[in-house]
Every structure is written in structure tokens, then in C-alpha cells.
């Protein structure tokens, strides 16, 4: 291939212009990265299991994801017909939770579910959204490889 030819010299001002553009771009990128990091610190919803949430004493109002198994016999429907109360367990701790809305089709007792929401002052987890098994194949990613025994309420993580 041809020999690399050095660029023709141009006026100082155009050099400046290029430099300014590059600095602007780099500055914007750095600012964006910093902003993203600080926002992630506040806004990323951490995933907890019930025992982790209890141990961490997650403050009320903070958006988190809480994942566990719906304890057999705990699923109750309120009189309004659209609010459900249930207990979520990971085998070590149980956390009361409520949800208003149409529950996913595979949300049932003894099955895995992830609630998105926050704790209220009384320690009940108020889910604004419920993620359950989507179909026979798909599981929420946090719930992979976890199984639940309805009789003993034992939750097991199968090794991968």
C-alpha cells in the first residue's frame, strides 16, 4: 500500500477547532459516565432473597427486587378480588408481601416469584409488579436453579 503521507499543514485555527471538538466529545462522555455511575448507585434495584432482605434491613420505600418461593397455604385474596397477600421464603426467612393486579398465570403457591417494589413501614413488601415463570421454559433470571418443597418449606439451590 502507499506510503503514509503526513497531513498538509493547515491554519492554527482549524487545528484548534478539531481539538475543541475532541475535548467536547471526551468531556461529554466522561460526564455521562459519571452521571450514569451515580444514578446507578441510587436507582439500580438490588435483588434480595427474604433472608438477605431481613439481614440487610432494607429501608422502607427503596425500590428492590425480592425473590423467593410462594409459601404453600399462604396465598390469600382480599375481598376486593384483585389484591393478594402471600409469604415469600428462601427457606431461611419468610417475608409478607402484597400485590394488587392481575397475577401472572404461573404465579401460584410453591412456585418461584419475584416482586418488584418496596417495603412499607410495617415490614410488608408491596410489589408493584410480579415476575413469575413466563411459560414452561422461561424462568426469571434470578430464580434459576432454585426449587421448593411445599411440605417442609425447604428451598434448595441446585448446583450448576
Amino acid at each position: 500500500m502507499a506510503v503514509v503521507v503526513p497531513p498538509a499543514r493547515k491554519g492554527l485555527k482549524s487545528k484548534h477547532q478539531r481539538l475543541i471538538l475532541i475535548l467536547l466529545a471526551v468531556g461529554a462522555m466522561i460526564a455521562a459516565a459519571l452521571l450514569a455511575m451515580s444514578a446507578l448507585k441510587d436507582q439500580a434495584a438490588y435483588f434480595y432473597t427474604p433472608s438477605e432482605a431481613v439481614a440487610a434491613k432494607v429501608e422502607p420505600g427503596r425500590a428492590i427486587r425480592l425473590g423467593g418461593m410462594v409459601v404453600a397455604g399462604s396465598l390469600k385474596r382480599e375481598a376486593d378480588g384483585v389484591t393478594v397477600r402471600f409469604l415469600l421464603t428462601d427457606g431461611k426467612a419468610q417475608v409478607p408481601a402484597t400485590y394488587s393486579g392481575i397475577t401472572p398465570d404461573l404465579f401460584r403457591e410453591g412456585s418461584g416469584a419475584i416482586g418488584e417494589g418496596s417495603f412499607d413501614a410495617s415490614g410488608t413488601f408491596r410489589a408493584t409488579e410480579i415476575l413469575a415463570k413466563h411459560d414452561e421454559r422461561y424462568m426469571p433470571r434470578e430464580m434459576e436453579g432454585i426449587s421448593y418443597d411445599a411440605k417442609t418449606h425447604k428451598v434448595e439451590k441446585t448446583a450448576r
Partner: protein
Amino acid sequence: MIAETGLAALWLAAVLAGLQLVLAWLTVSRGDQNAARLVRPVALAQGALTALAFALLIALFLRSDMSVVLVAANSHSMKPFIYKFAGAWGNHEGSMLLWVTVMSAAGMAIALFERGLDKATHYATLGSQAAISLGFYAFLLFSSNPFARLDPPAADGQGLNPLLQDPGLAFHPPTLYFGYVGLSVAFSFAVGALLTRKVDASFARAMRPWVLIAWIFLTVGITAGSYWAYYELGWGGWWFWDPTENASLMPWLAATALFHSVSVLAARDALRAWTIMLSVVAFAMSMVGTFLVRSGILTSVHAFAVDPTRGGFLLALLGFYIGGALLLFALRIGTVNEGRRFDPVSRETMLVLNNLLLSVILGLVLVGTLYPLLTEMMGVKVSVGPPYFNMIIGPFTLLLMALLVIGPLARWRRDDLKGLLRKIIPAVALAVVVLVAVKVVAGSQIGILPLLGLTAAAGVAIASVMPLVGRNLRRTPLFTWGMVIAHLGCAVSLAGMASDTAFTTEKLVAVRPGAKVDVAGWQVEFRGVLPIAGPNWTAMEATMAVSKGGGAPTIMRPQARFFSNPPTPTTESAQLTAWNGQLYLVLGDELEDGRWQLRLWWKPFVTFIWAGGGLIALGGLLALVGRLGRGWIRGRARARNAPGDEVLA
């Protein structure tokens, strides 16, 4: 035989891609005329072979040939015809075959139709395109063979995910792939121009239509995908900041930035290096998107680790092509002469700011999308969802919209600030009126982002048509119309988003048949539920009589469906579209006492979101037609002046 022929066609196409690369290399580096004559025919043959392979795969799905692994795993003989057809690309292997098919079709198109590009750059571009194709052929043949046989054949298939059994699926992924792959053309152009060191205005003019085509497809794909998610998932939302959605948004953001910067390069011969860089970034985003969706990493980093060949392969391709292009960029960019200068107050500066903002938004989406994957590798499970994205993308989008008010009114090269500010007075005035009016009407009910969103939408709506003021409309070029309409589309879409976010009314009830529910001035009478059956599903279907202000009722029928293969329940929502919004009904579960759960939404002006998306795409199309028309006229003139053979210097 069909499967074997398909596989053979793929291998042959891969060999031709290798040949195309070598021939292009000989042409560009040695000026070998014999090689030059062969490049295009080889590109055409390669395109024809992949098209054949893809057609054969479709044939296998239509015949429900259960001796093919892919068909057995993803299809079912009882599936309706259209989903057998669309099912061919509703899976990993098929979609990757679609990818290479589109890619080599793009190669064909470059070989056949590209006339504006410098000859040497043209060959280099075809070589680069072949190099990318080669990687994807390897991926397909070594880790994702769509034609693998199953022995013994399955009795019947496992069916297609019912969520995907929707007309939307038939067109959504191909549309996005046209966009993704279209960006590979821009990438190849950039690599070609770096190799031949010919980055200039005529290069930009040649590249622009390709970028526009990719961008139009991405716009249509994202808009359609958003509407599909809206009605199919039954959650009433139109954007979830789901990683698969972000995977299509990121290339779109990069492509949007790219065709704005390529316009600067074409019109003013400025922003050379930046445009080349963006071409690389845009295709990188396409590949990141493909990697995210196709590697299994989104289900879990562990799912990715379980089958690392595919994800690893894609990651290696990504690293190889993007790394290679960046290296070439680093080596060559010093030799690309600087473009022309411009003043701080000028159209160029506005477009630079547009590019900066789009890049920042792109970076923020990318970080938010990848962050959970990074933390999970370190053992911390985190989800990054709407709180992050809305909080951080919202303000930057508003800034971008503010820029959109003033940018298109600035003159190229130099403008005076006072005159420019005077031109935006009408837009700003209307924006302020809207701000005050909405605030007064809605009070504290409306959040700051939707409020400013409506304000910006009003401003942009006025400002977007300002470039037409004082012009003879019949002599206004088509691409100016395109710009106006696309920018107007941004305003329309933004208004829809803000209005839906701020003013949606939702009602969640459990009622017996015969009950009446009011939502936002609509009377909804729940008449009852009946079981019905479709070709491969059964459903409970509700009958709801909907009326407003005592008018004649309209019947709406939301369903709760149950698909048999694979066994999956889905929600089929029902929508009633009025001029000022949509009524959205979902049927829930039946309770023990005979009540049914119903979820009802009134979503004011929600349809503006997709109408705006359609306008944006239409604007792109007009710009494309306008540019191609002008390029064609120019090409004819050039051909008359300098008739010559395709000989390289």
C-alpha cells in the same frame, strides 16, 4: 435433500465470500484489473446462494419436516401457515441465517447500485463487507447450523412460543435485521474509505442513502416492536427498558447521530473523522445488540456460561471487527485531512451538539444495559429498570428536543445569534403557553418530566415546520420535507409519551357478569365470558359493551388464551381507538365466587407515540427518495460529461 442443499449453498456462499475478500484485496492493493472484474459477479453469486439457503429453510418449515432439528424444536404441524413461515426466523439459527441473507443481499445491492463511490473505495467496501460476512458464515456453520438433521425424526414439533405467534413477529425481527445489517454497510464504507484514504463529501453523499435505509428500517422496527409489546403483553406499557429493547434502541441512536453527521460531511465537508468513528460505533451497537439477544446472556450470565460457544463466538466477532476497525482508524485518521471550519453559531455546531447529545444518551443506555451483567459476574444481582433510565435519559432527551427547536433553523457555516433567536420566538411562545396551561389544568398531578415533555413537544411541533416558512412549498426539495416531517414526528411521539405517562387512568376491579364499570368517562358493561377455540389454542373470551356519553355501545373482546404447544397461557388485550386515545381492556382470572378480574385503562393520545414513529420513518423515506433522485440526476450529468470504463487509477 432440501436441508443438505441448503447447507451446501451456505458453504459455497462462505467460500465465495472468502474469494470476494481476496479479489477485493488484490484490486485495491495491486490494482489487479482481472480481480476487479470478478468482485461484483462474486458478490452477486454469494447473495443468490444465501437467498437460496434461506428460501430452503422456509420450505422446510412450511413442510413441517421434523427430521430437521430446528423445525422439530421450534415448529408444530398444527401451527397456522403464517407462523410456520415466520417461525423460520423466530429462533436462533434461523435468525442468524436471516442476518447473513440480508448481509449478502446488501453486498449485492452495493455491487449493483452504488455508483457515486470512488472506484477503489467501492472495491474496498465490498471486500470489507465480505470480511464481515465471512465471520457470520463461520458462526452459522460451526455453531448454529440451521440445517442439522434429527435422527430419528420427531413425531411432531415442540411449537413456537405463543407470545411470538402474532402477525407482529412476522415482520418485526426482519425489519430490525435490515437495520442492523444496513449499518454494516456504513461500517464497510468507512473501512473502505479509510483504506483508500478518501474521506470526503462525495464519499459522504454515497454513504448517506445506505445509512438512511438502515435508519428507516430501525425506526420502523422499534416502533412496531413497541406497539407489539404494548398490545401483546397486556401490561399497557409501550417501553420497558428491557435489554432486548435497548439492543434495538442503541443502534438507532448511533444511526441517528450518524446520518446527521454524514449530512454535515456531505454538505460542508466537515466532521470527517467523527463520521468515520460513528460508522464504526453504529455497527458495533448492532453487534452488541445481536450479542445481547442471541448469546443467552440476558436470561443469566450462567445461561451464557452453559453454552459459551455461541456467545463467545459473537463476542470474538465483535472484538475482531470493531477492534480491527478502531485500529485502522487509529492508524489512518492522521492521514485524513481536516474538513472545513465553521463558526460557533452555525448549523454545523448544532449538528455537533445533536451528535454529542445522542452519543451521551447512547452511552447512558449502554451502561445501564450492561451494568447488571457486570455486577452479576461479580456475584451481585441487580436490575436496572425504568427508574434509572427515565431519570437519566429523560432530561437529555429534553435537551435534545430543545436543540431540535433551534438547530434546523441555523444556517450552514455561519449565522447570527440574534436573528436565530428571533426565529424561534413562535415556538418558544407556544411552548410556554402549553407549559402554563398544562400546569394550571393538571396541577400537582403531573410529574416534571411529562410536563416538560409536553412543553418541548409543543415547541418542536412549531419549530419543525419553521424551515418551510417563506419558501415556495412546491419547490421545496423532498429531503427538506423529509426533515420537517421527521422532526414533527419527534414532537408527536414525545407528546404521546408524555400524555400517556401523565394522564393515564387505570382501574382494577373484580366484578360479576352484568356489572358496569366507569373509567375516564367511558361506561364499560361486562356482559360475560365464553370459552372459544382457535387453531392451536383455547380461550376464555369476555364480551364488553363500551360506550361514551350514552352513545351506541361498541363490543370489545379481551381474551385469556391457553396455547397447547408449548403449554402457555397468554393475555390478549382488547383496544378501542378513539381520536384522543385508546381504551385498553384486559381479562384476568376468574375468582372462586364467580367474579372476574378486569383491568381497564384509558390512555389519552397514546397512539401518538407510534404515529410519531411512523412520521419519523416517513420523513426518512422522503429524505432518501429526495437524495437518491438528486444523486441520480447528478450521476446522469457526470456520465454524459465523462464517459469511461470502470478502470482504476
